[in-house]
């Protein structure tokens, strides 16, 4: 009897979990007049007008392109600096290694709000304000530590004998690392990329502060509609639904590896 009771509870929970998302989807398929006029559990007369507006208005769709651009840059930067560093942490003992590791952790836990002002000052000195790279670099604050821990966990699972054998066979470090080691931990790299994507995609405080018009993320475009008079709920909901899509796609591809990332407890 017990597992069945649990399953019913679980299904109920999942329904509750999906309900707010469904509600936003429901609102997104209706016109603003319709939304404000009558309360309906499902769109009686669904319209894609809100979505069409987003796909045809550059002020809206460029937000998506900007978000995807800085997230992609961030994932690339994070992975390329974290791979060698994680290898160093997993294979070597060196002066100050523990302190460095702890300090990276502290960065992951640092309140982003703390870094708001210095980022603004620093990046305006370099003329980087309102560029994708500024946001990508700022997000490295928490994605780089994240990438190092997750990768270090996966790398420590690879026996050291592999490294030793390769060095005996006359491999140099770069060749060994790129042709043997990296392919061995490719699932770990996938998991890491997912978590970097996730945390860069959802962050907005820094992304909004560092951008103005050219590189403005989609989520910021949305907040600027809030508070304006005559708020268009349907349009806002449609934009919200579209921000969920990339995340949902990525989860679907990494679902089997995801649990492994969580198992290491390093998110």
């Amino acid at each position, binding site marked *: 009897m017990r597992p069945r009771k649990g399953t019913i509870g679980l299904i109920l929970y999942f329904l509750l979990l999906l309900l707010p998302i469904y509600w936003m989807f429901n609102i997104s398929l209706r016109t603003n007049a319709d939304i404000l006029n009558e309360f309906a559990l499902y769109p009686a007369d669904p319209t894609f007008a809100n979505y069409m507006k987003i796909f045809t208005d550059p002020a809206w769709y460029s937000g998506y392109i900007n978000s995807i651009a800085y997230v992609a840059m961030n994932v690339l930067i994070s992975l390329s600096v974290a791979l060698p560093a994680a290898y*160093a942490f997993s294979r070597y003992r060196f002066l100050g290694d523990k302190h460095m590791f702890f300090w990276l952790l502290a960065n992951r836990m640092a309140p982003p709000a703390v870094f708001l002002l210095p980022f603004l000052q620093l990046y305006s000195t370099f003329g980087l304000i309102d560029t994708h790279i500024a946001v990508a670099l700022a997000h490295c604050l928490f994605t780089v530590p994240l990438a190092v821990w997750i990768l270090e966990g996966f790398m420590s699972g690879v026996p050291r004998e592999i490294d030793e054998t390769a060095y005996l066979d006359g491999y140099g470090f770069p060749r060994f690392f790129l042709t043997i080691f990296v392919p061995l931990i490719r699932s770990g790299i996938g998991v890491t990329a997912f978590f970097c994507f996730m945390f860069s995609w959802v962050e907005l405080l820094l992304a909004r502060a560092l951008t103005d018009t050219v590189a403005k993320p989609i989520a910021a475009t*949305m907040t600027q509609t809030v508070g304006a008079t005559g708020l268009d709920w349907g349009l806002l909901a449609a934009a919200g639904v579209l921000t969920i899509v990339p995340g949902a796609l990525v989860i679907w591809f990494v679902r089997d590896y995801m649990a492994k990332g969580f198992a290491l407890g390093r998110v």
Partner: protein
Amino acid sequence: MNKWQDNRAWFLVMPLLLIVALSAIIPLIMVVNTSVQDIFGPGNRVFVGTEWFEEVLSDRRLHDALRRQLTFSGLVLLIEIPLGVAIALAMPKRGWGVSVSLVVLALPLVIPWNVIGTIWIIFTRPDIGLLGVLVNGLGIQFDHTAAALDAWVSVMLMEVWHWTPLVALLAYAGLRAIPDAYYQAARIDGASAWAVFRHIQLPKMRGVLMIAVLLRFMDSFLIYAEPFVLTGGGPGNSTTFLSTYLVKLAVGQSAPGPAAAFSLIYFLIVLPICLVFYQALQNVGTGDKR
């Protein structure tokens, strides 16, 4: 775990240091700089010592924000941890159900934080939101823009909705790591479901649960975007948490000094918790090997 001793490993860490210099080291130094100076304009600054720190530490609104923050984070742990464990226990162990559960659970985690706020505005508004209309229909006045209690209920609901899945995923990962032999032994002994939970599952999950508790505490301690979008810190200041207050301070005021001093104090509160977290992480690592 015996690693090779070689200080040349620093060369492998160099590229990371370079990036982190731009994203963490230099900014942090700038915060320290700002926190001890009064800046009137470019090239016009005075060293003021600990003046800003004293001002910020005696700020009543900061005390209130800290109290609210601690209440909030405490409630988050009390609700999310048991709920997350219960969900993990109810999740299927094999078959297609696993994939579906994982995907559904991970969904709230990849929604941008301010969109989470937007979802909950749309969901709880008394005019167009399902929850708002439903609750008001039952004859209970509910409006998170007007009453402090309603705002708290909305923010808590949103927080639990948003982050319980993370606890569940962590707990589930911990459960998966328990070898079948334990369950077989329990079955032979005729152990009850409660006994299995109390003496096998709970002790085995200790490591991941420790991490879940610390992660949820830290992240709820730093929360900003979701409640800001949903309530704007109000009504009044009733849902103004530490980060909300810090951003208000940083953006609203002419002198950046107080905000910088507050930033450092904030950071110093977080640091010891971080140390505990670090120790827990090391223990999980060794626990797996045994």
